[in-house]
């Protein structure tokens, strides 16, 4: 408590780490998309290109959550 600056920077790091918890959800989302996509491609290999495109699209949206978290974490560390 004798160095408030160090205390604040420590809290910043903690907050950045906590922000990245949302990566769990994004990971689940990406995994689910890949699971569904691969299963669908296995069932219907002819439609693989369309499924792949949509799978990557879905993964991108799921991943976006983690990216927002990353942005928040970066802003907390460097900009806040």
């Amino acid at each position, binding site marked *: 408590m004798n160095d408030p600056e160090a205390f604040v920077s420590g809290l910043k790091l903690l907050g950045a780490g906590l922000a990245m918890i949302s990566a769990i959800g994004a990971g689940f989302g990406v995994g689910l998309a890949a699971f569904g996509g691969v299963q669908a491609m296995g069932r219907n290999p002819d439609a693989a290109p369309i499924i792949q495109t949509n799978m990557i*699209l879905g993964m991108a949206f799921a*991943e976006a959550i983690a*990216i927002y978290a*990353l942005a928040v974490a970066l802003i907390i560390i460097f900009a806040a």
Partner: protein
Amino acid sequence: MSEEQTKKGFNWRKWVIYFCILAGIYSAFLGPSILKPISPVVVLPAEPTGLSIGGFEITNTMLATLLADLILLTIAVFVVGKFMRSGSLVPGGFYNAFEALVEFLWNTVEGAAGKWAFRIFPVPATIFLLIFVANLVKLVPGFESIGRIKEVHHGYGYAPVLLTKVGNLSIYTIDKAQKREHVAKEGEHGEGHVDQEKLCEACEIVPFLRGSATDLNFPFALAFIAVLMTQVYGVWALGIGYFEKFIPIRQLIKGGAMGAINFIVGILELILEFAKILSFGFRLFGNIFAGTLLLSIVGALTAVLVPVGLYFFEVFFGIIQAYVFYLLATIFISGATVSHHAEEAH
């Protein structure tokens, strides 16, 4: 005769490869004892290289981007141009590989956009090629490791060690064992006090070249262009009616509750358009920056063998990120050329 020659060439190549492997093993085991691996300083902003054009300073990520541009334009002028001038129909050599890549991109765009493909193609294709080349060229040794040595502004630095001297150019490295704290000196911010003779006390290395995608400006610029071009192509294809996707006034007037909901959805879509820039940009930046960080940290921990696997990983991720960026841009742009109402009609 030719068979013998190829055999001879193969042997020669084989010995070069053996030598490289041996040298690699030797330097991998002896190198760390000479050059201590240094855990890198995490810096987000691109560092200035000291060069400037008309007062506009050039950062190291800009230099890397320009290098990627140069590589692409060299291919375009010397490989594609030469082939086109030869008038041959049968591709061969490096041109064939480049054409296969472009053909792959073209097929995807054509599949997504149909008759709009040729007008759309330059944007996603350039996005792909630029990210692809930038991500791969970033992995060349010397990137992010060779640079100017300078005094740290705050935090810790390391003591400089003279490595070798070529002419009147001294080459230094920094010694990880001698960690030094930055001492705020008087007149540090002053002009002309930059010590040419006397070297820095607590030093860090500012690389000449740094991966383009590790600077937020590069992915955000590409994301901005992708989203902007989505609107441009949307207006080109559908006229001013394109903007009804965002502000569905007609629906608000026509249908009661559903119209109101659609209006709000349209506003959300407008917000989503800006969110796209963010997600596009941070996805590329996050992946590549994390990759760079991972490589340098693992390299500082174990200099032998493990970074090789991570290098493969990085090559793979560089290509995948380029492809994802390209694919999403293609889908968004080609989606904008299709009428929103037409989709609802069927």
